[in-house]
């Protein structure tokens, strides 16, 4: 290897590391916030009651999931733990998918940031929200065909859902007839060890009250999720950083030489740069004068739903096949909507 090539490789390695750390630094607070919220959901909210009140209708469920983002202003990394929690607790699939796709966009911080960046083009702000809602709802409805989420999920995670669903679906079966290891709780009813989460080991009634033991369990749950999801985030960030070095942004941007290819290029760019939805409007503003409004929208709609950095996190929930469906349908719908906008408006 000649010395010049050596220098080039070193500088590439350096920029890859810079990109990697910047992605991590940007995403980690949101992942922690998401984990904090999902753990809080576990310990301080009566989940079963919350889930039982969620709409079972696929369309209403997706819309409900989309709007939950308003309560949890998380980036596209923070929404994964919450969606994961919703799925494992038996929330309707449409709600979980609606939340997973729309929450990173339909939340006050992102809407405000988009408004600040595109103040002179208010239609961009409105269309970003509308397109995102449409896609989240459609994908949510498609996924709601699968009533039982377990076949879509990673086997390890599916196991956690398994017993809970089973218990909900067959309440009439006496617990004594079920096989497994049981603990006798304070309420007198036996607790099956396989289904138990740390929360189940606390007394049911005073659980919503704050206590030292409760806090320890809350922390335990957080540590467990940080270990599982944090590793995935590191992996995703490493992939995104390496790809950006191998295929620089300029190369991706230069692919956009027409109304259709510019949309595709911006979608690809959104997936590769993996920028957080809270700041992506400012990033894409740099392209506002040279790209079509449709392609800018494609970046801002597709980016928060699909990016390389989040793939690792999603792999902790879904099987690769399901992630491929999710990405493909979201991508096709983004192309359809933004290309229609480019042609008709």
């Amino acid at each position: 290897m000649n010395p010049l090539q050596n220098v080039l490789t070193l500088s590439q390695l350096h920029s890859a590391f810079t990109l990697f750390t910047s992605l991590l630094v940007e995403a980690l607070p949101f992942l922690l916030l998401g984990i904090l919220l999902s753990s809080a959901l576990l310990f301080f909210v009566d989940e079963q009651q919350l889930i039982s009140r969620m709409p079972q209708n696929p369309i209403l469920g997706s819309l409900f999931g989309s709007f939950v983002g308003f309560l949890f202003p998380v980036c596209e990394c923070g929404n994964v733990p919450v969606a994961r929690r919703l799925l494992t607790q038996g929330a309707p699939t449409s709600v979980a998918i609606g939340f997973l796709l729309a929450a990173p966009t339909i939340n006050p911080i992102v809407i405000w940031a988009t408004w600040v960046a595109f103040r002179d083009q208010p239609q961009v702000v409105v269309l970003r929200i509308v397109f995102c809602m449409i896609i989240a709802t459609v994908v949510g409805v498609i996924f709601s065909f699968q009533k039982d989420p377990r076949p879509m999920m990673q086997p390890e995670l599916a196991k956690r859902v398994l017993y809970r669903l089973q218990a909900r679906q067959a309440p009439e079966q006496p617990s004594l007839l079920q096989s497994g290891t049981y603990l006798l709780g304070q309420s007198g009813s036996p607790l099956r060890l396989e289904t138990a989460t740390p929360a189940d080991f606390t007394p049911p009634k005073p659980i919503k009250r704050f206590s030292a033991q409760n806090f320890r369990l809350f922390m335990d749950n957080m540590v467990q999720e940080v270990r599982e999801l944090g590793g995935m985030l590191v992996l995703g960030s490493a992939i995104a950083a390496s790809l950006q070095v191998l295929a620089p942004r300029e190369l991706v941007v230069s692919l956009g030489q027409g109304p259709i290819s510019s949309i595709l290029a911006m979608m690809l760019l959104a997936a590769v740069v993996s920028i957080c939805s809270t700041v992506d409007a400012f990033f894409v503003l740099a392209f506002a004068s040279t790209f079509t409004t449709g392609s800018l929208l494609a970046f801002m709609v597709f980016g928060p739903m699909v990016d390389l950095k989040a793939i690792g996190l999603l792999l902790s929930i879904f099987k690769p096949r399901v992630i491929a469906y999710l990405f493909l349908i979201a991508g096709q719908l983004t192309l359809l909507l933004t290309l229609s906008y480019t042609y008709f408006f």
Partner: protein
Amino acid sequence: MLKPDKFAPTLFPIDLAAIASIGVCSILILLLLISGNVCQGDRCWIDTRPKVAEFSWENEVIRAADNAFVVEFNRPMDHQGVEDNLKLTIPDKPEITDPLPGRFSWAGRRLAYTLNFPAPYGDRYQITLDNAQEKFRGSDELGQEMQPFEAVFRTPDRIFAYIGLEREEAGRLVLYNLTRQRKTLLTPPNLVVTEFHPYPDGQSILFMALDGSSTRSSVLEQQLYRVTTGVALAMDPEERPATGAGQVSLVLDNQTHQLLKFDLSADGGIIVAQRISRENPADVGLWLLREGRDPVALENQPGGTFQIAPDNALIAMAQGEGIALLSLKPGEEPLDFLAQFGMVLDFSPNGTTAAMVDFNRNDPNLLYTRSLYLVTNQRTQEKVFDTQGSIVNCQFDPKGENLYCLLTTLLERQEYTEQPYIAQVNLDTKEIKPLTTLPNYQDIHLSVAPDGLALLFDQIVTDPEGDGWLQTDAGESISDSQIWLLIPAVDPEKPPVLETLPFIGIQPQWLP
């Protein structure tokens, strides 16, 4: 117990639903892509060509202050192609080839066209653009040709107002539409108008008037009113606006204070009135009026003539032997005092410069000489010229490049006689070009048209024995007055056009 591997090989509802959806989406995308290419003659299923997304002057009535329009395309365009193919015309006057010369500037997909001078009033303009092609960044090749674009906009009619002197017009505000040759009497017969200022949108006029039928017979009994002009703001100049002409409303009464003078800010949002207390005649000062609020006393030192600066930041007022720059906040100290100057004549349209007169009282070498200065808001001063005669009035043209001044020259006679004349002063070269000399000197009001193409002025005749309400500053009754129109020639070699208008009136003033 369920086995994990049970899920792997079989097709689940999600697989079927997802594959079906992907199929449907693929077909829709394909249809969208194909339909742009399925054409019958000129018409395709979908017109996928680039187009103008927005034109800022579409169906708008634009004024002299509107000096640039923006065309936004939905795709990046070939700049040169657009510049070569953009055409501005006046459909009613096809003989004029380039009515609105200007310069292009680009910011991505946005094109801004800045006019070299304000669009002449009274015309309907058309913009057309076709044949230009899209061009994406980094690509040398030109893409699709754009959809043809056409839009219209217009400038307001040429309209001016004056205070009538004859028969039923006497003392009333008269509006004359020069474009459509139509006259309208705005104010009722019982009100004698003494001074007026049009609002910037031309929709109404603020005026000071006294009630001729009232028993209180004094010029000091005037009140401030607002009257609607009924000028159309729609694209169709014949369309009647919601409020017709001649609807008068009282703005400021004279119950507690008598009204002396007033000024209206350039944006029409602020009125400043000079009032004198009925209870304490020594209490003379400026009052600030904002729409829908009670008048507020500015508590300033008494002074003479005043003007609100175009930026609404201060008032320039003659005080003692200088110009005080007063804040618009009540009770505040004056912002500055320009002792050198005795008179503020006008502010430039952008508000950065004022034309001021220095009477040279402190310079024995320049005794009896007056100097015109341009003073900027950064307090820099630039002398424009010295004159032995008087500088009566000066007004900036809309671009701020020329001043139209009413000046006098001292005639070499035994008695002291001044010859008034109107001159165009080029602020770049400082060249003074006399346009016309005038026979009468008293109280001439000069008004430069908003597009800068014509000037109006009056020539009054006084009757020292008369007892009419309308009087000169010297207190003489005005018995007659002719209104004149002066059109400076575009070609500097040619003389200006001067004509008398068939109206008897005073204070002619163009509507913005």
